[in-house]
Protein backbone atom coordinates (compact mmCIF):
# COMPACT_ATOMS: atom_id res chain seq x y z
CA UNK A 1 0.00 0.00 0.00
CA UNK A 2 2.72 2.37 1.09
CA UNK A 3 4.92 1.71 -1.94
CA UNK A 4 1.99 1.88 -4.30
CA UNK A 5 1.03 5.27 -2.96
CA UNK A 6 4.63 6.42 -3.11
CA UNK A 7 4.88 5.37 -6.75
CA UNK A 8 1.66 7.19 -7.60
CA UNK A 9 2.95 10.22 -5.74
CA UNK A 10 6.11 10.30 -7.84
CA UNK A 11 4.29 9.70 -11.10
CA UNK A 12 1.47 12.15 -10.65
CA UNK A 13 3.44 15.35 -11.43
CA UNK A 14 4.94 13.69 -14.49
CA UNK A 15 1.57 12.77 -15.95
CA UNK A 16 0.17 16.16 -15.14
CA UNK A 17 3.01 17.87 -17.07
CA UNK A 18 2.49 15.77 -20.28
CA UNK A 19 2.13 17.60 -23.57
CA UNK A 20 -1.32 18.84 -24.51
CA UNK A 21 -3.40 17.73 -27.52
CA UNK A 22 -2.15 14.17 -27.29
CA UNK A 23 -5.39 12.40 -26.39
CA UNK A 24 -6.62 9.85 -28.91
CA UNK A 25 -9.57 11.87 -30.21
CA UNK A 26 -7.38 14.99 -30.54
CA UNK A 27 -4.65 13.08 -32.36
CA UNK A 28 -7.23 11.57 -34.68
CA UNK A 29 -8.74 14.96 -35.52
CA UNK A 30 -5.26 16.38 -36.11
CA UNK A 31 -4.19 13.40 -38.22
CA UNK A 32 -7.34 13.76 -40.35
CA UNK A 33 -6.61 17.46 -40.77
CA UNK A 34 -3.06 16.66 -41.96
CA UNK A 35 -4.40 14.02 -44.35
CA UNK A 36 -6.90 16.48 -45.80
CA UNK A 37 -4.07 19.02 -46.22
CA UNK A 38 -2.17 16.35 -48.18
CA UNK A 39 0.58 16.40 -45.55
CA UNK A 40 0.83 12.63 -45.70
CA UNK A 41 4.18 12.20 -43.96
CA UNK A 42 3.02 13.98 -40.81
CA UNK A 43 -0.43 12.39 -41.01
CA UNK A 44 1.15 8.91 -41.17
CA UNK A 45 3.14 9.68 -38.02
CA UNK A 46 0.01 10.83 -36.20
CA UNK A 47 -2.02 7.79 -37.26
CA UNK A 48 0.87 5.57 -36.16
CA UNK A 49 0.69 7.08 -32.67
CA UNK A 50 -2.99 6.11 -32.37
CA UNK A 51 -4.29 2.76 -31.13
CA UNK A 52 -4.40 0.25 -33.98
CA UNK A 53 -7.96 0.33 -35.28
CA UNK A 54 -9.08 -0.47 -38.78
CA UNK A 55 -9.95 3.12 -39.71
CA UNK A 56 -6.63 4.58 -38.47
CA UNK A 57 -4.64 1.73 -40.01
CA UNK A 58 -6.49 2.28 -43.27
CA UNK A 59 -5.74 5.99 -43.46
CA UNK A 60 -2.15 5.37 -42.37
CA UNK A 61 -1.76 2.88 -45.20
CA UNK A 62 -3.19 5.44 -47.63
CA UNK A 63 -0.70 8.04 -46.40
CA UNK A 64 2.15 5.60 -47.00
CA UNK A 65 0.74 4.87 -50.43
CA UNK A 66 0.68 8.56 -51.27
CA UNK A 67 4.30 8.75 -50.12
CA UNK A 68 5.15 5.90 -52.51
CA UNK A 69 6.23 3.82 -49.52
CA UNK A 70 4.42 0.80 -50.94
CA UNK A 71 6.12 -1.91 -48.86
CA UNK A 72 5.27 -0.22 -45.56
CA UNK A 73 1.71 0.43 -46.76
CA UNK A 74 1.23 -3.27 -47.50
CA UNK A 75 2.58 -4.22 -44.05
CA UNK A 76 0.01 -1.91 -42.45
CA UNK A 77 -2.80 -3.22 -44.66
CA UNK A 78 -2.11 -6.79 -43.53
CA UNK A 79 -3.15 -5.73 -40.03
CA UNK A 80 -6.61 -4.67 -41.27
CA UNK A 81 -9.44 -6.90 -40.10
CA UNK A 82 -12.23 -5.43 -42.22
CA UNK A 83 -12.20 -6.66 -45.82
CA UNK A 84 -14.04 -3.57 -47.03
CA UNK A 85 -11.13 -1.39 -45.88
CA UNK A 86 -8.72 -3.76 -47.58
CA UNK A 87 -10.62 -3.61 -50.85
CA UNK A 88 -10.76 0.17 -50.65
CA UNK A 89 -7.01 0.29 -50.06
CA UNK A 90 -6.30 -1.74 -53.19
CA UNK A 91 -8.69 0.41 -55.23
CA UNK A 92 -6.77 3.47 -54.07
CA UNK A 93 -3.51 1.74 -54.85
CA UNK A 94 -4.78 1.11 -58.36
CA UNK A 95 -5.76 4.75 -58.75
CA UNK A 96 -2.38 5.99 -57.52
CA UNK A 97 -0.33 3.49 -59.50
CA UNK A 98 -0.09 5.72 -62.58
CA UNK A 99 1.32 8.67 -60.69
CA UNK A 100 3.68 6.54 -58.66
CA UNK A 101 7.43 6.90 -59.04
CA UNK A 102 7.53 3.09 -59.26
CA UNK A 103 4.44 2.20 -61.33
CA UNK A 104 5.83 -1.19 -62.33
CA UNK A 105 6.42 -2.25 -58.73
CA UNK A 106 3.08 -0.90 -57.59
CA UNK A 107 1.25 -2.60 -60.41
CA UNK A 108 2.91 -5.94 -59.80
CA UNK A 109 2.27 -5.74 -56.03
CA UNK A 110 -1.32 -4.80 -56.71
CA UNK A 111 -1.92 -7.89 -58.80
CA UNK A 112 -0.16 -10.22 -56.36
CA UNK A 113 -1.61 -8.82 -53.12
CA UNK A 114 -5.15 -7.71 -53.95
CA UNK A 115 -7.91 -10.21 -53.13
CA UNK A 116 -9.14 -12.23 -56.11
CA UNK A 117 -12.62 -10.79 -55.75
CA UNK A 118 -11.21 -7.43 -56.87
CA UNK A 119 -9.33 -8.67 -59.90
CA UNK A 120 -12.22 -8.08 -62.29
CA UNK A 121 -12.19 -4.38 -61.28
CA UNK A 122 -8.55 -4.13 -62.27
CA UNK A 123 -9.01 -5.53 -65.79
CA UNK A 124 -9.41 -2.12 -67.47
CA UNK A 125 -6.50 -0.86 -65.41
CA UNK A 126 -4.33 -3.80 -66.47
CA UNK A 127 -5.36 -3.12 -70.04
CA UNK A 128 -4.23 0.51 -69.79
CA UNK A 129 -1.08 -0.46 -67.95
CA UNK A 130 -0.14 -2.96 -70.64
CA UNK A 131 -0.82 -0.30 -73.25
CA UNK A 132 1.43 2.21 -71.47
CA UNK A 133 4.22 -0.31 -71.05
CA UNK A 134 4.14 -2.13 -74.38
CA UNK A 135 1.91 -0.03 -76.62
CA UNK A 136 -0.94 -2.49 -77.09
CA UNK A 137 -4.09 -3.39 -75.20
CA UNK A 138 -4.69 -7.07 -74.39
CA UNK A 139 -7.06 -8.69 -76.84
CA UNK A 140 -8.81 -10.85 -74.23
CA UNK A 141 -9.97 -7.65 -72.55
CA UNK A 142 -12.58 -7.21 -75.26
CA UNK A 143 -14.81 -9.83 -73.68
CA UNK A 144 -14.38 -8.54 -70.18
CA UNK A 145 -15.95 -5.90 -68.01
CA UNK A 146 -15.74 -2.19 -68.63
CA UNK A 147 -17.59 0.42 -70.69
CA UNK A 148 -17.85 -0.19 -74.45
CA UNK A 149 -16.43 3.26 -75.23
CA UNK A 150 -13.34 2.36 -73.24
CA UNK A 151 -12.66 -0.73 -75.34
CA UNK A 152 -13.31 1.11 -78.59
CA UNK A 153 -10.94 3.85 -77.56
CA UNK A 154 -8.23 1.42 -76.50
CA UNK A 155 -8.50 -0.35 -79.86
CA UNK A 156 -8.11 2.92 -81.76
CA UNK A 157 -5.17 3.91 -79.54
CA UNK A 158 -3.48 0.57 -80.18
CA UNK A 159 -3.78 1.28 -83.91
CA UNK A 160 -2.46 4.82 -83.38
CA UNK A 161 0.47 3.38 -81.50
CA UNK A 162 1.22 1.03 -84.39
CA UNK A 163 1.15 3.98 -86.79
CA UNK A 164 3.52 5.89 -84.52
CA UNK A 165 6.26 3.31 -84.94
CA UNK A 166 9.01 3.94 -87.49
CA UNK A 167 11.60 1.30 -88.24
CA UNK A 168 15.14 2.72 -87.77
CA UNK A 169 16.57 0.11 -90.12
CA UNK A 170 14.06 0.94 -92.84
CA UNK A 171 14.77 4.66 -92.43
CA UNK A 172 18.52 4.03 -92.73
CA UNK A 173 17.99 1.76 -95.75
CA UNK A 174 15.84 4.34 -97.55
CA UNK A 175 18.49 7.01 -96.98
CA UNK A 176 21.15 4.65 -98.29
CA UNK A 177 19.17 4.19 -101.52
CA UNK A 178 18.27 7.86 -101.90
CA UNK A 179 19.89 10.32 -99.44
CA UNK A 180 17.25 12.03 -97.31
CA UNK A 181 14.43 9.59 -98.15
CA UNK A 182 14.70 8.00 -94.70
CA UNK A 183 14.26 11.43 -93.13
CA UNK A 184 11.17 12.05 -95.21
CA UNK A 185 9.84 8.63 -94.09
CA UNK A 186 10.25 9.81 -90.47
CA UNK A 187 8.39 13.03 -91.35
CA UNK A 188 11.48 15.27 -91.14
CA UNK A 189 10.81 16.79 -94.56
CA UNK A 190 13.18 19.78 -94.35
CA UNK A 191 16.09 17.70 -93.11
CA UNK A 192 15.40 15.14 -95.84
CA UNK A 193 15.51 17.79 -98.55
CA UNK A 194 18.64 19.35 -97.01
CA UNK A 195 20.42 15.95 -96.86
CA UNK A 196 19.50 15.20 -100.48
CA UNK A 197 20.65 18.60 -101.81
CA UNK A 198 23.94 18.68 -99.89
CA UNK A 199 24.92 15.10 -100.72
CA UNK A 200 23.99 15.66 -104.37
CA UNK A 201 25.83 18.96 -104.56
CA UNK A 202 29.06 17.65 -103.06
CA UNK A 203 28.90 14.54 -105.22
CA UNK A 204 28.52 16.74 -108.30
CA UNK A 205 31.43 18.95 -107.20
CA UNK A 206 33.60 15.90 -106.60
CA UNK A 207 32.94 14.59 -110.11
CA UNK A 208 33.50 18.03 -111.64
CA UNK A 209 36.75 18.63 -109.72
CA UNK A 210 38.17 15.26 -110.69
CA UNK A 211 37.10 15.85 -114.30
CA UNK A 212 39.05 19.13 -114.32
CA UNK A 213 42.02 17.53 -112.53
CA UNK A 214 41.52 19.53 -109.32
CA UNK A 215 42.52 16.48 -107.32
CA UNK A 216 42.91 18.20 -103.91
CA UNK A 217 39.57 19.96 -104.14
CA UNK A 218 38.05 16.76 -105.48
CA UNK A 219 39.20 14.91 -102.37
CA UNK A 220 37.87 17.62 -100.04
CA UNK A 221 34.44 17.67 -101.69
CA UNK A 222 34.50 13.86 -101.97
CA UNK A 223 35.12 13.45 -98.26
CA UNK A 224 32.38 16.04 -97.59
CA UNK A 225 29.95 14.15 -99.85
CA UNK A 226 30.74 10.88 -98.06
CA UNK A 227 30.28 12.54 -94.68
CA UNK A 228 26.91 13.97 -95.71
CA UNK A 229 25.83 10.63 -97.16
CA UNK A 230 26.84 8.73 -93.99
CA UNK A 231 25.36 11.45 -91.82
CA UNK A 232 22.03 11.27 -93.61
CA UNK A 233 21.88 7.48 -93.14
CA UNK A 234 22.80 7.68 -89.46
CA UNK A 235 20.52 10.71 -88.95
CA UNK A 236 17.60 8.82 -90.48
CA UNK A 237 18.22 5.89 -88.15
CA UNK A 238 18.27 8.18 -85.08
CA UNK A 239 15.34 10.25 -86.34
CA UNK A 240 13.19 7.12 -86.61
CA UNK A 241 13.84 6.40 -82.92
CA UNK A 242 13.18 10.02 -81.90
CA UNK A 243 9.98 10.38 -83.95
CA UNK A 244 8.69 7.04 -82.64
CA UNK A 245 9.32 8.10 -79.04
CA UNK A 246 7.65 11.49 -79.60
CA UNK A 247 4.58 10.12 -81.34
CA UNK A 248 4.21 7.23 -78.89
CA UNK A 249 4.37 9.66 -76.03
CA UNK A 250 1.71 11.84 -77.65
CA UNK A 251 -0.60 8.80 -78.02
CA UNK A 252 0.06 7.81 -74.38
CA UNK A 253 -0.69 11.31 -73.13
CA UNK A 254 -3.88 11.38 -75.20
CA UNK A 255 -4.87 8.02 -73.70
CA UNK A 256 -4.20 9.13 -70.14
CA UNK A 257 -6.15 12.34 -70.71
CA UNK A 258 -9.12 10.42 -72.09
CA UNK A 259 -9.10 7.99 -69.19
CA UNK A 260 -8.74 10.79 -66.68
CA UNK A 261 -11.58 12.79 -68.25
CA UNK A 262 -13.89 9.79 -68.26
CA UNK A 263 -12.67 8.30 -64.99
CA UNK A 264 -12.37 4.83 -66.48
CA UNK A 265 -9.79 3.47 -64.07
CA UNK A 266 -12.09 2.41 -61.29
CA UNK A 267 -15.48 3.55 -60.23
CA UNK A 268 -15.04 4.28 -56.47
CA UNK A 269 -13.68 7.70 -55.60
CA UNK A 270 -10.69 8.35 -53.38
CA UNK A 271 -11.65 8.04 -49.73
CA UNK A 272 -10.90 10.88 -47.35
CA UNK A 273 -11.25 11.12 -43.60
CA UNK A 274 -13.66 13.71 -42.22
CA UNK A 275 -12.01 17.06 -42.87
CA UNK A 276 -12.63 20.13 -40.74
Amino acid at each position, binding site marked *: *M*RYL*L*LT*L*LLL*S*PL*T*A*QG*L*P*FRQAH*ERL*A*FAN*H*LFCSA*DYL*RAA*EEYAALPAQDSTLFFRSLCLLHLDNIDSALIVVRQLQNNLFKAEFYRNMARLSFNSAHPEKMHSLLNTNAPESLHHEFIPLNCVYKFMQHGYAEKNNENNTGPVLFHEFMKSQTKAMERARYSPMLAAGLSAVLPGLGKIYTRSYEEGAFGFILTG*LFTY*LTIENFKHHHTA*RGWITGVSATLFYGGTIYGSYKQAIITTAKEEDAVKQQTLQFLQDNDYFLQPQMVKPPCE
Partner: protein
Amino acid sequence: MRVRHDILSVFYAILFMLSGITSAQAAPSGDSVFVLQLRFADSLLQSGNPFDAVTEYERVLFFDKQKTYARRVLLGQAEAYLQGGKYTFAIDCMNRALAFSKSSAEIQDLQFALIQVHILNKNSSQAYGILDAMAQNRQNVSLLPALNYWYGWAKIFDDDWKAAAEYFDKCDSAKFLKNFCLDVDNKKYPVSFIKLISAVLPGSGSIYTGHYFSGALSLGWNALFGYLTVQALQEQRVLDALLIGDLLLLRFYTGNLENAEKYALEKNKEIHESALHYLETDFQGAKP
Protein backbone atom coordinates in the same frame (compact mmCIF):
# COMPACT_ATOMS: atom_id res chain seq x y z
CA MET B 1 2.87 -1.29 15.35
CA ARG B 2 -0.36 -1.79 13.44
CA VAL B 3 -1.56 1.72 14.46
CA ARG B 4 1.70 3.26 13.33
CA HIS B 5 1.38 1.55 9.95
CA ASP B 6 -2.16 2.89 9.49
CA ILE B 7 -1.10 6.40 10.47
CA LEU B 8 1.67 6.23 7.88
CA SER B 9 -0.77 5.00 5.22
CA VAL B 10 -3.16 7.84 5.94
CA PHE B 11 -0.25 10.28 5.83
CA TYR B 12 0.80 9.01 2.40
CA ALA B 13 -2.78 9.09 1.17
CA ILE B 14 -3.14 12.74 2.22
CA LEU B 15 0.21 13.52 0.66
CA PHE B 16 -0.86 11.85 -2.61
CA MET B 17 -4.12 13.77 -2.69
CA LEU B 18 -2.32 17.03 -2.03
CA SER B 19 0.20 16.30 -4.76
CA GLY B 20 -2.67 15.51 -7.09
CA ILE B 21 -4.30 18.83 -6.32
CA THR B 22 -1.06 20.77 -6.76
CA SER B 23 -0.15 19.00 -9.97
CA ALA B 24 -3.64 19.50 -11.27
CA GLN B 25 -3.16 23.20 -10.59
CA ALA B 26 0.14 23.09 -12.45
CA ALA B 27 -1.42 21.17 -15.33
CA PRO B 28 -1.91 23.32 -18.37
CA SER B 29 -5.34 24.65 -18.99
CA GLY B 30 -6.81 27.28 -21.32
CA ASP B 31 -4.17 29.50 -22.87
CA SER B 32 -1.33 27.88 -20.97
CA VAL B 33 -1.98 24.71 -22.99
CA PHE B 34 -1.08 26.57 -26.16
CA VAL B 35 1.87 28.26 -24.48
CA LEU B 36 3.20 24.89 -23.36
CA GLN B 37 2.75 23.44 -26.85
CA LEU B 38 4.39 26.49 -28.43
CA ARG B 39 7.36 26.17 -26.09
CA PHE B 40 7.68 22.55 -27.12
CA ALA B 41 7.61 23.51 -30.82
CA ASP B 42 10.16 26.27 -30.18
CA SER B 43 12.45 23.84 -28.38
CA LEU B 44 12.28 21.47 -31.34
CA LEU B 45 13.16 24.31 -33.69
CA GLN B 46 16.06 25.43 -31.50
CA SER B 47 17.39 21.88 -31.28
CA GLY B 48 17.59 21.75 -35.08
CA ASN B 49 14.54 19.61 -35.74
CA PRO B 50 12.51 21.78 -38.13
CA PHE B 51 10.33 18.94 -39.45
CA ASP B 52 8.88 18.05 -36.03
CA ALA B 53 8.73 21.74 -35.12
CA VAL B 54 6.43 22.37 -38.09
CA THR B 55 4.19 19.48 -36.94
CA GLU B 56 3.94 20.87 -33.42
CA TYR B 57 3.25 24.41 -34.64
CA GLU B 58 0.59 22.98 -36.92
CA ARG B 59 -0.96 21.25 -33.92
CA VAL B 60 -1.31 24.59 -32.16
CA LEU B 61 -2.78 26.16 -35.27
CA PHE B 62 -5.29 23.35 -35.61
CA PHE B 63 -6.53 23.40 -32.01
CA ASP B 64 -6.39 27.19 -31.60
CA LYS B 65 -9.86 27.78 -33.00
CA GLN B 66 -9.79 31.47 -32.02
CA LYS B 67 -6.51 31.85 -33.95
CA THR B 68 -5.03 33.76 -31.02
CA TYR B 69 -1.59 32.30 -31.65
CA ALA B 70 -1.88 32.06 -35.45
CA ARG B 71 0.69 34.77 -36.24
CA ARG B 72 3.20 33.44 -33.75
CA VAL B 73 2.69 29.87 -35.00
CA LEU B 74 2.96 30.75 -38.67
CA LEU B 75 6.16 32.70 -38.05
CA GLY B 76 7.54 29.71 -36.16
CA GLN B 77 6.64 27.47 -39.10
CA ALA B 78 8.21 29.94 -41.52
CA GLU B 79 11.42 29.87 -39.49
CA ALA B 80 11.37 26.07 -39.42
CA TYR B 81 10.90 25.95 -43.18
CA LEU B 82 13.74 28.45 -43.64
CA GLN B 83 15.93 26.26 -41.47
CA GLY B 84 15.08 23.36 -43.77
CA GLY B 85 15.72 25.46 -46.90
CA LYS B 86 12.05 25.29 -47.98
CA TYR B 87 11.70 28.92 -49.02
CA THR B 88 8.42 28.55 -50.89
CA PHE B 89 6.71 27.03 -47.85
CA ALA B 90 8.24 29.73 -45.63
CA ILE B 91 6.88 32.43 -47.94
CA ASP B 92 3.43 30.82 -47.83
CA CYS B 93 3.47 30.83 -44.00
CA MET B 94 4.63 34.45 -43.89
CA ASN B 95 1.91 35.51 -46.32
CA ARG B 96 -0.66 33.76 -44.14
CA ALA B 97 0.83 35.41 -41.04
CA LEU B 98 0.30 38.80 -42.68
CA ALA B 99 -3.46 38.25 -42.38
CA PHE B 100 -3.07 37.88 -38.61
CA SER B 101 -0.81 40.92 -38.14
CA LYS B 102 -2.64 43.74 -36.43
CA SER B 103 -0.29 46.71 -36.03
CA SER B 104 1.50 48.43 -38.91
CA ALA B 105 4.82 47.66 -37.23
CA GLU B 106 4.01 43.94 -37.30
CA ILE B 107 3.04 44.16 -40.98
CA GLN B 108 6.22 46.09 -41.85
CA ASP B 109 8.43 43.59 -40.02
CA LEU B 110 6.82 40.76 -41.91
CA GLN B 111 7.08 42.55 -45.23
CA PHE B 112 10.81 43.11 -44.73
CA ALA B 113 11.22 39.45 -43.78
CA LEU B 114 9.26 38.44 -46.88
CA ILE B 115 11.45 40.62 -49.11
CA GLN B 116 14.55 38.88 -47.77
CA VAL B 117 13.13 35.40 -48.31
CA HIS B 118 12.01 36.30 -51.83
CA ILE B 119 15.52 37.55 -52.57
CA LEU B 120 17.00 34.33 -51.18
CA ASN B 121 14.51 32.32 -53.21
CA LYS B 122 15.77 34.17 -56.32
CA ASN B 123 12.28 35.49 -56.94
CA SER B 124 13.22 39.13 -57.19
CA SER B 125 10.03 40.16 -59.01
CA GLN B 126 8.04 39.32 -55.86
CA ALA B 127 10.56 41.22 -53.74
CA TYR B 128 10.30 44.27 -56.03
CA GLY B 129 6.51 44.02 -55.83
CA ILE B 130 6.55 44.35 -52.04
CA LEU B 131 9.28 47.01 -52.12
CA ASP B 132 7.37 49.07 -54.70
CA ALA B 133 4.15 48.79 -52.70
CA MET B 134 5.93 49.91 -49.53
CA ALA B 135 7.74 52.73 -51.33
CA GLN B 136 4.49 54.05 -52.80
CA ASN B 137 2.91 54.28 -49.36
CA ARG B 138 3.44 57.86 -48.21
CA GLN B 139 3.43 56.81 -44.57
CA ASN B 140 6.63 54.88 -45.19
CA VAL B 141 8.86 57.90 -45.91
CA SER B 142 11.01 57.09 -42.90
CA LEU B 143 11.53 53.59 -44.29
CA LEU B 144 13.06 54.77 -47.58
CA PRO B 145 16.71 54.10 -46.61
CA ALA B 146 15.77 50.57 -45.52
CA LEU B 147 13.77 50.06 -48.70
CA ASN B 148 16.72 51.24 -50.81
CA TYR B 149 18.97 48.89 -48.90
CA TRP B 150 16.80 45.88 -49.81
CA TYR B 151 16.33 47.15 -53.38
CA GLY B 152 20.12 47.04 -53.53
CA TRP B 153 20.24 43.44 -52.31
CA ALA B 154 17.56 42.39 -54.79
CA LYS B 155 19.65 43.97 -57.57
CA ILE B 156 22.74 42.09 -56.34
CA PHE B 157 20.90 38.77 -56.65
CA ASP B 158 19.72 39.90 -60.10
CA ASP B 159 23.39 40.29 -61.07
CA ASP B 160 22.89 44.03 -61.63
CA TRP B 161 25.74 45.32 -59.46
CA LYS B 162 25.72 48.82 -60.93
CA ALA B 163 22.05 49.38 -60.06
CA ALA B 164 22.71 47.86 -56.62
CA ALA B 165 25.49 50.41 -56.04
CA GLU B 166 23.08 53.22 -56.98
CA TYR B 167 20.55 52.03 -54.39
CA PHE B 168 23.21 51.58 -51.70
CA ASP B 169 24.40 55.11 -52.47
CA LYS B 170 21.04 56.34 -51.13
CA CYS B 171 21.65 54.66 -47.74
CA ASP B 172 24.17 56.28 -45.43
CA SER B 173 24.95 53.02 -43.70
CA ALA B 174 25.74 51.09 -46.87
CA LYS B 175 28.88 52.82 -48.15
CA PHE B 176 30.88 49.62 -47.99
CA LEU B 177 28.28 47.75 -50.04
CA LYS B 178 28.16 50.59 -52.57
CA ASN B 179 31.92 50.47 -53.10
CA PHE B 180 31.90 46.70 -53.16
CA CYS B 181 29.18 46.64 -55.85
CA LEU B 182 31.04 49.23 -57.95
CA ASP B 183 34.20 47.17 -57.62
CA VAL B 184 32.40 44.01 -58.78
CA ASP B 185 30.81 45.90 -61.66
CA ASN B 186 34.23 47.16 -62.76
CA LYS B 187 35.66 43.66 -62.65
CA LYS B 188 32.98 42.30 -64.99
CA TYR B 189 33.74 41.80 -68.67
CA PRO B 190 31.88 44.07 -71.16
CA VAL B 191 29.98 41.50 -73.25
CA SER B 192 28.96 43.89 -76.05
CA PHE B 193 32.52 45.21 -76.42
CA ILE B 194 33.90 41.67 -76.53
CA LYS B 195 31.41 40.72 -79.25
CA LEU B 196 32.32 43.86 -81.18
CA ILE B 197 36.08 43.19 -81.15
CA SER B 198 35.38 39.58 -82.11
CA ALA B 199 33.36 40.80 -85.05
CA VAL B 200 36.26 43.05 -86.16
CA LEU B 201 39.07 40.57 -85.47
CA PRO B 202 37.86 36.97 -85.00
CA GLY B 203 39.32 35.31 -81.90
CA SER B 204 40.19 38.58 -80.16
CA GLY B 205 37.19 38.31 -77.80
CA SER B 206 38.28 34.85 -76.69
CA ILE B 207 41.84 36.11 -76.15
CA TYR B 208 40.46 39.08 -74.15
CA THR B 209 38.67 36.67 -71.79
CA GLY B 210 41.83 34.61 -71.31
CA HIS B 211 41.08 31.75 -73.73
CA TYR B 212 44.26 32.22 -75.75
CA PHE B 213 44.39 28.85 -77.53
CA SER B 214 40.75 28.98 -78.56
CA GLY B 215 41.19 32.58 -79.74
CA ALA B 216 44.29 31.75 -81.79
CA LEU B 217 42.56 28.73 -83.32
CA SER B 218 39.50 30.79 -84.22
CA LEU B 219 41.69 33.47 -85.80
CA GLY B 220 43.56 30.82 -87.81
CA TRP B 221 40.43 29.10 -89.16
CA ASN B 222 38.78 32.37 -90.09
CA ALA B 223 41.93 33.62 -91.83
CA LEU B 224 42.33 30.36 -93.76
CA PHE B 225 38.74 30.12 -94.97
CA GLY B 226 38.59 33.85 -95.63
CA TYR B 227 41.68 33.51 -97.81
CA LEU B 228 40.22 30.49 -99.66
CA THR B 229 36.93 32.31 -100.26
CA VAL B 230 38.68 35.39 -101.61
CA GLN B 231 40.96 33.26 -103.77
CA ALA B 232 37.98 31.36 -105.22
CA LEU B 233 36.27 34.67 -106.00
CA GLN B 234 39.41 36.01 -107.65
CA GLU B 235 39.56 32.91 -109.83
CA GLN B 236 35.83 33.38 -110.58
CA ARG B 237 34.93 30.03 -109.00
CA VAL B 238 31.69 31.39 -107.61
CA LEU B 239 30.24 28.07 -106.49
CA ASP B 240 33.44 27.18 -104.61
CA ALA B 241 33.46 30.61 -103.00
CA LEU B 242 29.85 30.28 -101.95
CA LEU B 243 30.40 26.81 -100.49
CA ILE B 244 33.57 27.73 -98.59
CA GLY B 245 32.13 31.07 -97.52
CA ASP B 246 28.77 29.71 -96.38
CA LEU B 247 29.68 26.36 -94.98
CA LEU B 248 33.12 27.02 -93.52
CA LEU B 249 33.92 30.70 -93.12
CA LEU B 250 30.49 31.71 -91.89
CA ARG B 251 30.33 28.75 -89.51
CA PHE B 252 33.70 29.63 -87.92
CA TYR B 253 32.94 33.34 -87.89
CA THR B 254 29.60 32.92 -86.08
CA GLY B 255 31.22 30.31 -83.82
CA ASN B 256 33.86 32.91 -82.90
CA LEU B 257 31.14 35.42 -81.95
CA GLU B 258 29.19 32.85 -79.94
CA ASN B 259 32.33 31.69 -78.14
CA ALA B 260 33.37 35.25 -77.28
CA GLU B 261 29.95 35.92 -75.74
CA LYS B 262 29.91 32.56 -73.93
CA TYR B 263 33.37 33.07 -72.42
CA ALA B 264 32.50 36.62 -71.30
CA LEU B 265 29.27 35.43 -69.68
CA GLU B 266 31.10 32.55 -67.97
CA LYS B 267 33.70 34.91 -66.56
CA ASN B 268 30.99 37.32 -65.38
CA LYS B 269 29.14 34.44 -63.69
CA GLU B 270 32.33 33.46 -61.88
CA ILE B 271 32.83 37.04 -60.69
CA HIS B 272 29.17 37.29 -59.58
CA GLU B 273 29.29 34.02 -57.66
CA SER B 274 32.58 34.77 -55.96
CA ALA B 275 31.26 38.21 -54.89
CA LEU B 276 28.06 36.63 -53.55
CA HIS B 277 30.12 34.02 -51.70
CA TYR B 278 32.17 36.78 -50.09
CA LEU B 279 29.01 38.62 -48.99
CA GLU B 280 27.50 35.41 -47.66
CA THR B 281 30.51 34.41 -45.60
CA ASP B 282 32.40 37.58 -44.69
CA PHE B 283 29.91 40.45 -44.80
CA GLN B 284 28.73 41.30 -41.29
CA GLY B 285 25.84 43.67 -41.99
CA ALA B 286 22.14 42.90 -42.60
CA LYS B 287 21.73 40.47 -45.49
CA PRO B 288 18.99 38.14 -46.77
